[in-house]
């Protein structure tokens, strides 16, 4: 990838017997909003901590803005901003005092930047109110304000909308989009709220059990989230068996509610519905739909084992 600003090659990190990051390689494009998606314990935060220098990899290489050595990486991180796990703030200080302190920490001489970023995130009127009296949404916004202080080229955000109400989620999402469009800031964002990422990201990285499952651009993902035939009958387990044995259809996934999705032979809808009917099954739902990000994610990362088990369980029941 020509315009990659961050490259990770064969990164490994083990904590005791647990491999948190297992031979991870990826690249982040300049100007992208990259969603890092995976279940709890997938390795997202560990990966972000390794990018940030908090956690040392056991092996592998990280390149940021073309630099590899630990000394150079420390310098290049000053061009980035991170919010990992919780946003940083001294509880006993006000928003302005916190950001002034961060200006000193980052070596930012112009303290007027503090008022500028506070107004960007909508915290300009908090006055002397201590951060300990802030709501969760306000603390998240303060964290983003701190991340903006140094005019970063890259922002790494670990679940920045966690705990926010829907209004707060929309505010943060719009802010990230605006920063990416107006200031060309590259964003790496992890989240469990997949629906929100689908409105935001230009690239996706799916990770599970410490391994990268897929790196894909949004456009490609939209093509992959193809049409499918959504079926729900009065006996879905039997329907699976019938479709597999009578029609040889293999690409079937099972939703949480037990209904089926067929991803092949979509031009044979009539044959499929007739076959089901001829085998005594009553179709309750028969529709062509497109998979959304959550379904794609569940299929790729989260629920593969559960799906296979469910199909075998369905076979046992029939």
């Amino acid at each position: 990838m020509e315009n990659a600003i961050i490259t990770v090659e064969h990164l490994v990190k083990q904590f005791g017997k647990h491999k948190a990051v297992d031979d991870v390689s990826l690249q982040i494009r300049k100007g992208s909003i990259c969603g890092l998606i995976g279940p709890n314990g997938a390795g997202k935060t560990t990966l972000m901590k390794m990018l940030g220098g908090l956690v040392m990899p056991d092996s592998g290489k990280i390149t940021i803005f073309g630099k590899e050595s630990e000394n150079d990486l420390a310098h290049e991180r000053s061009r980035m901003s991170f919010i990992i796990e919780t946003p940083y703030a001294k509880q006993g200080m006000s928003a302005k005092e916190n950001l002034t302190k961060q200006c000193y920490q980052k070596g930012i001489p112009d303290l007027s930047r503090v008022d500028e970023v506070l107004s960007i995130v909508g915290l300009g009127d908090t006055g002397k109110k201590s951060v300990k009296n802030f709501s969760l949404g306000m603390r998240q916004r303060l964290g983003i304000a701190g991340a903006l202080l140094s005019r970063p080229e890259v922002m790494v955000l670990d679940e920045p909308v966690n705990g926010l109400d829907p209004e707060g989620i929309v505010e943060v999402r719009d802010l990230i989009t605006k920063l990416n469009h107006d200031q060309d800031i590259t964003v790496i964002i992890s989240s469990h709220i997949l629906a929100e990422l689908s409105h935001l990201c230009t690239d996706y990285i799916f990770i599970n059990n410490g391994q990268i499952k897929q790196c894909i651009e949004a456009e490609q993902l939209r093509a992959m989230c193809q049409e499918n035939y959504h079926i729900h009958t009065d006996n879905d387990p039997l329907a699976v068996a019938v479709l597999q044995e009578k029609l040889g259809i293999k690409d079937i996934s099972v939703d949480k509610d037990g209904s089926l999705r067929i991803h092949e032979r979509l031009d044979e809808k009539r044959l499929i519905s007739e076959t089901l009917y001829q085998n005594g099954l009553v179709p309750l739902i028969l529709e062509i739909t497109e998979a959304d990000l959550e379904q794609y994610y569940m299929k790729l990362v989260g629920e593969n084992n559960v799906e296979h088990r469910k199909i075998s369980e369905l076979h046992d029941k029939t």
Partner: protein
Amino acid sequence: MWNIVRSLNYTIKHDIYSYIMVLLGLIIAVSSIVTMFSDSGGETLTGSLAVGYWGTFIAVFCFMLPAFVTTRICGYDFNDKTVNYEVLYGQKRSAVFFSRIILSYIYNIILFAVIAIAPLAVLTLMNGWGHSISMSEALFHFVLSLMVLIRYTTFIACLTFLARSSWIGLAAGYLMMIFEMLPLFVMELMNLGFELTWQLSIPNAMKIMDFSNTAMGFVDGKDITIYKAALDSSVVTGTVLAAVIETVLLLICSYVLFRKRDID
């Protein structure tokens, strides 16, 4: 590194704990002057006479408050992820480590000056320095004490960095103080004939600031107490070498460990 020092100073100025420590230091200094006046009997309380009264107190008390200060500077910022974010901001780990060590030294030297030297300066202004001990010799004792303070500060700081907790650092520091003072009592009780001088920090400081060996002199028509406070060359050499070697070794080992460990 100096960015971190500036930001730490900014936090210290906005931390009520800092003002409590300053107030405590001033209370100790003022109450010590009052105590010394009441203990001096008929003798004029000059600056040099107060050195003897104040000596052992300095040796112990000047280590208790610096433990608070050091653990606050070196350990507290692990609780709220300040250290984490300094690394994320692109600060090198050496800057994160040594900025806090240097600031601990600076603040503890200031605290030492407030508690140990300020009362003597006030008394000197009021009653003059006197003849109980020469100023140069008193200064020599204080400089050696400072070296021991730096040694002790380094120990507490490194322990706190390794534990990543101001409370563990403080608890360990106070336990260490008790541990170091215990041999003194045991040796005195059992009359072992062996004296701890430079081997441990607290006994080292107590030895340096021990002015119990006195004689009476007659100067300007008055009886005065004269301190026989000359230190054995082995004590001086041991103090300096122990301070330098222990400080350097502790700093190197702690930094190497801090540099390699994950910060979670």
